[in-house]
Every structure is written in structure tokens, then in C-alpha cells.
């Protein structure tokens, strides 16, 4: 609305404005981006903690080596969730309800599979968190990120439940889009960790 369209009496009538929006027009999008900024800081601190304690060891990693297979499978399982996430986000932005729901269900199912792979990955860690500073940072990063993807998966399941009701609110498109944004972050933030942990374990 430009200056000229304003009524001369100083009254701004907004009754004709759209009742919802998507993308960076919505406060929810900005809230999600800021949440991602906070979480990124948290993960950056964890990443640095790993590099920092490495200076204290002559031999690194000081404990038994992490097993490559479960870690790789878990990271790959996370990456596979990204294409359907991309598709349900695109459908949400275009307000195509049926496509959004279909791809969200597929992405949610894949994220549950990724969680199962993560359980295997955790199961296969060959050391206790009390073993060394190395073990402690690996377990903390793994645990923190698991919390992250459990949150994301629960959120996706919850969105699915909402989308299968007989009546769906228009703002759900915004919510689904924010979910996708958060899930993108949850998956991508793990890649530097997986790379660091498993390549260092494999290098020796």
C-alpha cells in the first residue's frame, strides 16, 4: 500500500489485506530463523569443544575407533529425508494442500527411519561417555543432535495429525513451512560433526 492509497483522514483500512502469508513475510519465519541462529551457536560451541580438547591428547582419538558403517548409514538416512522435505515445503509455499500432505507424510516416515538409524549409531558407539574428554564431547554432540531430530520428527508427526483432520486452518501452511526450515537445519548441522568424527576415526 503506497502513500497515495492512504485515506486523507489518516484512517488506514486494512480489511482488504490477505489474512495469511508465507515465507519471510511471516513473523513465524523470522522466529524460526532466529531459533536456528541460537541452535547454530550451541552446535558451534560443541564443535569447538571437540577441537579444543584435541589439543590435550598426543594420540587422537584416545578411545576405541567409532564404527564407520552405522555413522554413515545414519547420516545418509538423514540426507534422504531432504528431497521430500524440499517438496512439501514448496507445496506449502504454493498452498497446494494435497501435495504438501503427501510429501510431509513421506518425509515423516523417512525421518522416523533416520531416527532408527540414529539409535543404531548410538548403540554402536564403542566407548562410554566417562572414558575421556574425547568420549564426552562425542556423546554430548550426538545426544544434543539426537534431541534435535527427535524434536523435528515429533513436530512432523504432529503436523501430519493436524493435516488429517477434517478442517485445517489456513495458517497451517506457514507452520508446515517453518517445520521444513527447522528440519533442513537439523539435518545439515550434523554433516560437519559426522565428517569430523568419522573421518578422524577412519584416518587412523
Amino acid at each position, binding site marked *: *500500500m*503506497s502513500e497515495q492509497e*492512504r485515506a486523507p483522514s*489518516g*484512517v*488506514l*483500512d*486494512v*480489511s*482488504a*489485506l*490477505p*489474512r*495469511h*502469508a508465507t515465507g*519471510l*513475510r*511471516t*513473523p513465524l519465519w*523470522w522466529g524460526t530463523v532466529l531459533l536456528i541462529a541460537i541452535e547454530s551457536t550451541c552446535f558451534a560451541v560443541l564443535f569447538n569443544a571437540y577441537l579444543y580438547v584435541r589439543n590435550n591428547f598426543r594420540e587422537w582419538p584416545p578411545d576405541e575407533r567409532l564404527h564407520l558403517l552405522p555413522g554413515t548409514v545414519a547420516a545418509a538416512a538423514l540426507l534422504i529425508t531432504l528431497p521430500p522435505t524440499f517438496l512439501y515445503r514448496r507445496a506449502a509455499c504454493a498452498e*497446494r*494442500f*494435497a*501435495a504438501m500432505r503427501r510429501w510431509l507424510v513421506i518425509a515423516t516416515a523417512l525421518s522416523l527411519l533416520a531416527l532408527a538409524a540414529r539409535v543404531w549409531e548410538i548403540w554402536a558407539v564403542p566407548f562410554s561417555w566417562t572414558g575421556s574428554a574425547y568420549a564426552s564431547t562425542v556423546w554430548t554432540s550426538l545426544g544434543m543432535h539426537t534431541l534435535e531430530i527427535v524434536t523435528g520428527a*515429533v513436530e512432523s508427526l*504432529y503436523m501430519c495429525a*493436524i*493435516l*488429517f*483432520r*477434517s*478442517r*485445517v*486452518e*489456513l*495458517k*497451517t501452511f506457514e507452520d508446515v513451512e517453518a517445520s521444513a526450515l527447522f528440519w533442513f537445519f537439523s539435518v545439515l548441522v550434523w554433516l560437519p560433526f559426522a565428517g569430523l568424527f568419522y573421518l578422524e576415526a577412519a584416518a587412523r
Partner: protein
Amino acid sequence: MFVGFNLAFFPQHLLGLRGMPRRIYTYLPETGWGFWNFVSTIGAFTLGLGALVFLFNAARTLRSGARASANPFRAYSLEWALSSPPPRSADRIVPVAASRYPLWLGELGRVEGLARDEVLVTRVVDAEPDHVGHAPTPTIMPPITALATAVLIVACLFTPWGLPVGVVLVSLTLLVWFWPTDREPAFQTRERVSSESVGKEVLP
């Protein structure tokens, strides 16, 4: 009060530099801390006296003082646009400002066309009206979530199991809180899906 405050607290910096620890009420004369503590005491009484004058002034003005106008300082910013005392639900009145000094330059505009529970969302850069969002409807869930959070924190003092149990508890309250209230603009899922599939046939 200003003189009293600085007279009371600034000497404490000097005393700290001379080795006096915090939060003691007595010390030996040989320490040499007596002079500045005496100055500090004078400052404390000055501060107390100032507070008494302030309270007396407040009580007297309450009884028989002149009524202040809505904008006694002729300030330019929006918080001074309201009547004094401010009306109930003052946040329902959305002003339109055309400059940085809206109360000095020109008249203040007013937004119309918002229903109850509706809020105006503006663009991020130029603050032009973009769309209308829905404020959350009143719910009892925030205090219940706060209670669950308190349970989480207190339980963690006694057992590590407080963390997982508390997290589940807090998550449940959040999920109940976020469930749709059916008070927002919505569509029927079945009709939407069938109309979208019809639209798909029309499109090339």
C-alpha cells in the same frame, strides 16, 4: 538520591582495591577502612533521605496535586499518544505514523478493519502493511507449561531421571497448547483435496 547513591557506592570501589572483602559488617580499625566506610554511611543516609522526600512527594501529589495531561512533556513518540490514564486494551488501537516524530509533525493516523484477535503484520524493511495475522486465542496452557518446566527443574535437583521425564512432560503440555483451536480461518480438507485434483486436470 543521585548524590547519595554515588556517595554510598563509589567508596566501595576504593575499599575493594584496598582489600576489603564484600558482605562483611565489621572489621578491625588497623585495616584503615574506616574513613571510606564512614563516607559511604553518610551517602547511604543521604540516599535514604532522598527516598523519603520522593515518597512524601508521591503521597502529596496523589492527594492534592495537579492532574498531568496525557503528554505533559510534549514528547513526539507514540506511547504519549494515548489518553491518561490509558484506556483498557490500548493495544487494540493501532496508530499510523508517517514520520519519526508523529506527535510533532502532522496528525496521527489510525488502522481500521481489524477484527478481534487480529493483528497487523507489516513488511520488515519499510513497515508498510502486508497482511493480517491472528493473535493466539486465550488458553490456560502457558501457566501449565510453566508448572511442568518447574517440575522438570526441581526434579533434576533430586534425580537425573528428572531430565527425560520432565522433557516428556513439558513436550506434552506444548503439544496440547499448540493443537488447533478451530477459531482461525480454515478450509475443509476433503473439498480442498478434490478441488486441487480438478485443478490439476485443467492445467497442462
